[in-house]
């Protein structure tokens, strides 16, 4: 059995088993949030970890996906569920159009351009009060799947868990496909990749579009689960959190993005006890992780295990 299937199996087992240990329905809700956030982070991992391109505007696409769930039913009269692929397609199209010029930039310049894009999206969502409801947010109608109306944390736990499993499966497949190898090659050296005949611009753009679609689907699921969305979903801090999840978990690792997302969603939940100290502790932990476990949690643990067994 190769590592890809092992990863999927472990993730499926975790999703299937941990509900046994939940003392209350509240935990389903938190875990459902972990899965859907992880889905967004996995998308960013494709862009950052596999293609090596930084994005400080990932939450912009999450916001586009989330707001599609509210605006589609309201203005186009579509069923909510139909808006999920629609939002994903819209995010993909926008990424395709924006990505073409943006991805020519490198390093910090790319960071500031994606940052600008994310902030523009958030700003439109805040300012167009007549359409988006402004800073107060907007309600999402309850979805209906063949007559079944998912309600409460438990239903969404399984829906989001399944979505994450599919997302991780696709991302792992991508990583080991010719396309994924091309991304790995251009990650190491764009010049070298170009000399062996890889269309660098096309592959980078593809990774950007894939990341956007993941983000939009995650945003759409999150919005449906909450029944509500505010422009904060697209905000800069959210983008930073996604980047942090991917880096803390381990840039090069798809399951790393899941672990990073779990950490960043669960920490604030655990820290609500220390309410006032939440930000100080979160900032401190981010710094400590990055200083002492630079490669990220999953690759760090993996190499530790290898050393033990060797």
């Amino acid at each position, binding site marked *: 059995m190769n590592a890809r299937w092992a990863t999927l199996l472990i993730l499926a087992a975790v999703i299937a088993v941990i509900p046994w240990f939940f003392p209350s329905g509240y935990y389903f809700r938190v875990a459902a949030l972990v899965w859907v956030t992880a889905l967004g982070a996995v998308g960013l991992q494709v862009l*950052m970890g596999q293609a090596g391109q*930084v994005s400080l505007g990932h939450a912009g696409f999450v916001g586009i996906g989330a707001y599609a769930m509210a605006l589609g039913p309201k203005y186009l009269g579509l069923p909510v569920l139909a808006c999920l692929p629609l939002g994903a397609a819209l995010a993909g199209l926008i990424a395709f159009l924006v990505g073409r*010029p*943006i991805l*020519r*930039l*490198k*390093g*910090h*310049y790319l*960071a*500031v*351009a994606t*940052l*600008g*894009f994310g*902030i*523009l999206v958030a*700003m*439109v969502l*805040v*300012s167009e009060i007549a359409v988006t409801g402004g800073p107060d947010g907007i309600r999402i109608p309850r979805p209906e799947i063949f007559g079944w109306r998912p309600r409460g944390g438990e239903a969404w736990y399984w829906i989001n868990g399944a979505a994450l499993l599919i997302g991780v499966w696709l991302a792992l497949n991508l990583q080991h496909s010719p396309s994924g190898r091309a991304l790995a090659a251009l990650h190491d050296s764009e*010049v*070298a990749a170009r000399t062996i005949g890889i269309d660098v611009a096309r592959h980078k753009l593809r990774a950007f579009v894939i990341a956007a679609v993941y983000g939009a689907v995650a945003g759409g699921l999150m919005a449906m689960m909450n029944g509500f969305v505010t422009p904060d979903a697209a905000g*800069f*801090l959210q983008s*930073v959190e996604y*980047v*942090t999840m991917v*880096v*803390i978990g381990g*840039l090069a690792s798809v399951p790393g993005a899941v672990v990073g997302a779990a950490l960043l969603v669960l920490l604030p939940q655990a820290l609500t006890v220390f309410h*006032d*100290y*939440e*930000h*100080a*502790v*979160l*900032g*401190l*932990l*981010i*710094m400590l992780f*990055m*200083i002492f476990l*630079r490669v990220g949690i999953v690759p760090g643990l993996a190499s530790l295990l290898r050393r033990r067994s060797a």
Partner: protein
Amino acid sequence: MPELLQFLVSGLTVGAVYALVALGFTLIHNASDVVNFAQGEFVMLGGMVTVFAAAAGLALPLAALLAIAVAVLVGLALHRLAIEPARGASAVTLIIITIGASIFLRGVAQIVFDKRFHQLPGFSGNDPIMVLGAAILPQSFWVLGGALLVFAGLFLFLERTLMGKAVLATAANRLAARLVGVDTSCVLALSFGLSAAIGAFAGILITPITLTSFDVGTLLALKGFAAAMLGGMGSPLGAVVGGLLLGLLEALGAGYVSSAYKDAVAFLVILAVLFAMPQGLFGHRGVERV
């Protein structure tokens, strides 16, 4: 006409603050290749410490000095405790460390101070001065004058002193600088201290106009970063021009287009500039070595 003048002055005032933040980014980036997202927290510290020290009965100039001293200490600690141990890490890792530092500083500020907005009195009163029909706050002159002082001082320091030349040499080539006897780790610490001082100074100057609170740093860091990129990362002149330009664009955008989209105007222009000139206005065209 008075309207335009009004927009120009307010744009230059805000722009001067962006320019100071961008200078801080540039100094640290030149010495260490680190993009310090905690730069905005220095501005916050400058404003908040001054407010609280003044409220505790300290004279304003003393409170300001104390604020700068606190910011410099925090800057040095940031370098010593967070950046130095992570030496050799990738650019993204270092960015995340500074983002972590900025969240941490904000969290601590919210515990040590409070979550409310605070204001300082204008240094020479709050009565606007009428110039050609435009009402200009005297504090605007303080901001512009203070910024000018920093620009000139920094220029003299970099061009005329041995230490300044060491900073420039480190920026140009760290290894070569070390070979000719420059203590680069000392230069690095100096850069962090200096940009913390500049940030805090900007925070003190602008607080009478824009108020301050524990979370003003984030947006300022973003704008300062954008300004530095607009000018071309690494060029102090670019940082100043980029900052002033950003401030002007924002003020004109808010005045003539839509105040809700004033930040959007700034970022749209940055995107446009980067598409046309991927290295910013004053950046060097990078030569890629294969």
